[in-house]
């Protein structure tokens, strides 16, 4: 007998509050309103209530190893300089001059002691402090206050496993609290060697005609799309076993909107896929003594392969080959879904390696990684198209009139599917022994809703 339930939604009025009410009502029924993926009010509120508040990834420490090194990055729509100053401290600052707002930095990377505005010449130290201006005596009589007239600085900057995050809010949970169980997972991914991980090359960037949330929710837990969206790779023989994939996937749903998928890789492919399939000479260097016993068990049985750290930093580590029959390599990528406009984003794709790994092993992993997940990637290029229809639906007059709710009910809400987390799981969050179920996606939207309903001005 079917337990399927009809959708029960209140007809809604105009405005953001009404829409957020519909999200709240929908999530409990496994439903998400389609306008979320293309709406001016939603987007504006996301910039203010999520990106200008929570912890956002800006760079990895290995991208700016030396004093004076900087990279130009983004927090929401804001252009930020991430620099290592003369004391070795990392600063995250707005790239706009305090005199007229001109950008003091227009290059992606470099090394600088100072940033000089090209308009009137106001100059800032690489820690953001105001350092001087041309014709100072005639123009201003005395020096301006270095801190008061310095570049805007992110009030909070912190890092975990070398991943630098910034928060534009002085208040709120610490990075450790924000990451929660995601920090525990990051440790299993990056903490296998005391030297940690480092970035290889420069991040690769492309504009996708999709909403940033589509990338985030996909990596937070969508194993269901693989044998349809990426089926071409099964047909060519490049990838095998995508039909069985969901049964080999384990799902980790974490507080704070973070979600990971893990794969029983050895069960899928054999012992050579132990620890993602890193070659024996690499595995010989791994040190798991700092891991707790749940982390060790997870690594040995179901290493984390895919994930999203709320809001927009995603992860993928899989074994793959340059072609069927060639020796496999393990690739590690982190990617960020940068919002540009409602329904439009820029993807940034970083490739990582363990710092101790040889140049040869590093380049092998890089080549294999770019072959599957990059602008040319044989998996990723299809995602870029699959997510494009969603903002079009979000903007559709018909769908808005119909108040369309999208179906996130694999969790078992409103359907016959019965899914329960593993009762004996000792790690953070909830662990499911199944790739089906859209728990990670709904968990992402619950966190999204929580922040969106807290007006940062304190109006609510």
């Amino acid at each position, binding site marked *: 007998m079917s337990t399927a339930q009809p959708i029960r939604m209140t007809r809604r009025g105009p405005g953001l509050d009404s829409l957020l009410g519909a999200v709240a009502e929908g999530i409990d029924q496994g439903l998400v309103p389609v306008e979320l993926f293309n709406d001016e009010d939603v987007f504006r509120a996301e910039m203010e209530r999520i990106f200008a508040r929570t912890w956002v990834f800006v760079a990895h420490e290995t991208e700016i190893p030396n004093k004076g090194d900087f990279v*130009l990055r983004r927090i929401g729509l804001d252009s930020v300089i991430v620099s290592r100053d003369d004391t070795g401290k990392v600063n995250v600052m707005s790239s706009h001059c305090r005199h007229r707002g001109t950008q003091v930095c*227009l*290059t*992606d*990377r*470099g090394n600088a002691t100072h940033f000089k505005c090209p308009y009137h010449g106001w100059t800032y130290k690489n820690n953001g402090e105001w350092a001087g201006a041309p014709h100072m005596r005639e123009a201003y009589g005395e020096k301006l206050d270095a801190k008061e007239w310095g570049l805007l600085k992110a009030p909070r900057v912190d890092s975990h496993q070398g991943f630098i995050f910034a928060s534009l809010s002085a208040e709120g949970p610490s990075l450790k609290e924000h990451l929660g169980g995601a920090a525990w997972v990051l440790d299993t991914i990056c903490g296998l060697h005391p030297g940690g991980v480092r970035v*290889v*090359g*420069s991040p*690769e*960037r*492309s*504009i*996708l*005609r999709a909403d940033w949330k589509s990338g985030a929710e996909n990596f937070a837990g969508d194993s269901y799309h693989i044998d349809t*969206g990426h*089926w*071409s*790779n099964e*047909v*060519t023989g*490049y990838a095998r076993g995508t039909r069985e994939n969901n049964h080999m996937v384990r799902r980790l749903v974490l507080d704070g909107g973070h979600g990971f998928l893990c794969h029983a890789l050895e069960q899928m492919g054999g012992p050579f896929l132990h620890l993602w399939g890193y070659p024996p000479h690499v595995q010989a260097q791994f040190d798991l003594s700092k891991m707790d016993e749940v982390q060790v068990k997870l690594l040995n049985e179901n290493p984390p392969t895919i994930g999203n750290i709320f809001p927009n930093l995603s992860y993928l580590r899989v074994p793959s080959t*340059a*072609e*069927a029959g*060639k020796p496999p390599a393990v690739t590690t990528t982190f990617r960020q879904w940068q919002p540009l406009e409602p329904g439009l984003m*820029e993807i940034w794709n970083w*490739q990582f390696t363990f710092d101790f790994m040889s140049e040869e092993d590093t380049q092998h992993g*890089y*080549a294999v990684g*770019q*072959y599957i997940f*990059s*602008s*040319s990637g*044989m998996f*990723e*290029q*299809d995602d*870029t*198209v*699959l997510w*494009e229809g969603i903002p079009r639906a979000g903007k559709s007059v018909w769908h808005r009139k119909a108040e369309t709710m999208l179906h996130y009910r694999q969790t078992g809400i409103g359907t016959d599917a019965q899914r329960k987390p593993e009762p004996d799981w000792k790690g953070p969050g909830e662990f499911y022994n199944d790739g089906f179920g859209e728990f990670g996606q709904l968990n992402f939207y619950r966190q999204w809703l929580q922040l969106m309903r807290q007006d940062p001005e304190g109006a609510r």
Partner: protein
Amino acid sequence: MSNSKETAVHAEFDAMAKKAEQFLARETVLLDDRRFWDWFALLDDQVIYQVLIRTVRESGADEFASTGFRQRDDKSMIETRIKRLHTGFAWAEDPPSRTVRLVGSIVVDPTDDPNVLAADSALHVYRHRAQDDHGDLIAARRRDRIRFTDQGPRLLSRTVLLADVVLTTPNLGIFL
């Protein structure tokens, strides 16, 4: 005597250079017509095809230094891509883009290998995907090496230098 020998060498280079230019033009027809296997037949067995990542840097600095690549394929990797394009499930190019390639500003130079020429060309690809309202323009310079074999000229290497630092077409589902 030496003059006529020099003239003969020049004539031979000019003939090869002309063939190299024709080769680049023929490629655009094959790719625009989606005759991928015919294009594949023009690749040298040793071919390396790569598209580099570019960064915005100050004047004089190397925009490509240690950046890595968006794509770097050998012949077997390209073969897998072409197979994929024919599966009916390669959504990035199914339905396929309509493309028009314009190749020009070609400069051909000799290399240390008498059978290999270096060809530098500019490429504009107009790519109109599926139901998009507008097509995308992909602009690049290409640094190629073309090997002359008994079967004719073959692409030995291609390095694509995109004008875009941020790719504005959503993927590199087409060959450049």
